[in-house]
């Protein structure tokens, strides 16, 4: 009977784990709803400002901001947005894999790479993987304020202004739906003009009051909104991935329990059969 007792203990511990994962699933689900809402509300602004900025990059302005000028690439920077906590499936690994592959492409061309990391998981990864980390910030809350993020980004932007870095990319997960999050890498600066044939001819805006002031303000806001949106989107991705991961953990625990219960019942039954046949055998012997 020792066998059955052991199995019962094992089932009990799996049931406890299942309770925890189920609770985590529900927490993630409710957090996800909020994070998704926040993300959806910020999206129009970041999309519109991106299109405005690409229009500006398409124009032939009287004032060229240095963020708009393509330079020969010797050193590039990546801003990588990851989560702080684990238990969210392959979310971070997928993003980091994509990033590392992208970095490798540049390294093969003898371009050096600087990293700016947001989120604990990225920090841990690049600590063991290696890489020149110039700035890192972790423990970004679920409702990030732009001011919390701008510090680490500033290091990158300063490096660009000083000419140490010639391109900056932003790597983060994009929330498609609850089941799918896609790692994406976007070029942040220099600003990329879009291919729009209607805007191909030489043209420029009328600026009121002053091109320099306007473009500078607009670019600052653009960068802030892009990074903010990346972080907010990442939070939504994290919660969605966590929910899915916890759901499958709960399901797996259920399967395991079923299996163990079957084994336990078989063991009990065979024990009873054995006992019975012993009794019958004993009675026959008398």
């Amino acid at each position: 009977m020792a066998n059955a007792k052991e199995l019962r203990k094992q089932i009990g511990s799996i049931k406890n784990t299942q309770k925890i994962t189920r609770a985590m699933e529900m927490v993630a689900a409710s957090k996800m709803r909020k994070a998704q809402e926040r993300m959806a509300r910020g999206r129009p602004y970041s999309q519109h400002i991106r299109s405005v900025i690409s229009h500006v990059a398409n124009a032939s302005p009287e004032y060229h901001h240095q963020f708009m000028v393509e330079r020969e690439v010797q050193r590039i920077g990546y801003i990588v947005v990851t989560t702080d906590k684990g238990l969210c499936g392959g979310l971070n690994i997928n993003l980091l894999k994509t990033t590392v592959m992208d970095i490798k492409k540049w390294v093969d061309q003898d371009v050096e790479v600087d990293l700016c990391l947001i989120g604990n998981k990225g920090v841990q990864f690049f600590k063991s993987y290696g890489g020149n980390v110039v700035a890192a910030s972790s423990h970004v809350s679920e409702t990030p304020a732009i001011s919390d993020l701008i510090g680490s980004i500033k290091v990158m932007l300063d490096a660009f202004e000083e000419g140490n870095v010639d391109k900056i990319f932003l790597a983060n997960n994009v929330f498609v739906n609850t089941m799918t999050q896609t790692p994406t890498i976007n070029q942040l600066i220099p600003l990329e003009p879009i291919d729009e044939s209607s805007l191909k001819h030489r043209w420029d805006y009328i600026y009121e009051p002053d091109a320099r002031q306007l473009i500078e303000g607009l670019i600052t806001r653009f960068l802030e909104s892009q990074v903010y949106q990346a972080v907010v989107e990442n939070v939504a991705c994290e919660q969605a991935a966590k929910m899915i991961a916890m759901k499958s953990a709960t399901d797996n625990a259920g399967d395991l329990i079923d299996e163990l219960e079957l084994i336990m019942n078989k063991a009990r039954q065979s024990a009873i059969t054995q006992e019975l046949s012993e009794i019958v055998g004993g009675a026959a012997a008398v």
Partner: protein
Amino acid sequence: MASTVLCSIVSAEEEIFSGQVEMVIATGTMGELGILPGHTALLSGVKPGPIRLILEGGEEEIFFASGGYIEVQPTSITILADTALRADDLDEVAALEAQKKAERELVDQKSDVDFARVSLDLQEQAAMLRTIRKFRDRKG
């Protein structure tokens, strides 16, 4: 039918308006701007104040923006507002209160306030009140 242009007003928090309009009247840094479809490309700052949209069919809608940028392309108008509200959502009492508070802070030299911030606040509240009045005039 008059021609129309696609206009969208977005703030950092949400998309406030998106649709076809006949005319946009906004408060730019250099003064009021009236923008009709086919306007040449323009980039301007937006001062705190009302934004009036004349919708298809002549109906009018009023919004409030507390600053930001406006981008005009011949086929689209984008207003990137810092914060934007529909005029019906504005609270006149709260705006008056905030204006009074800002004025008091300005007068009260002792209190250690950031002069630039408070006067900006004051401007914003005044602009909000202007929007409310304009909205009421139209209705009443």
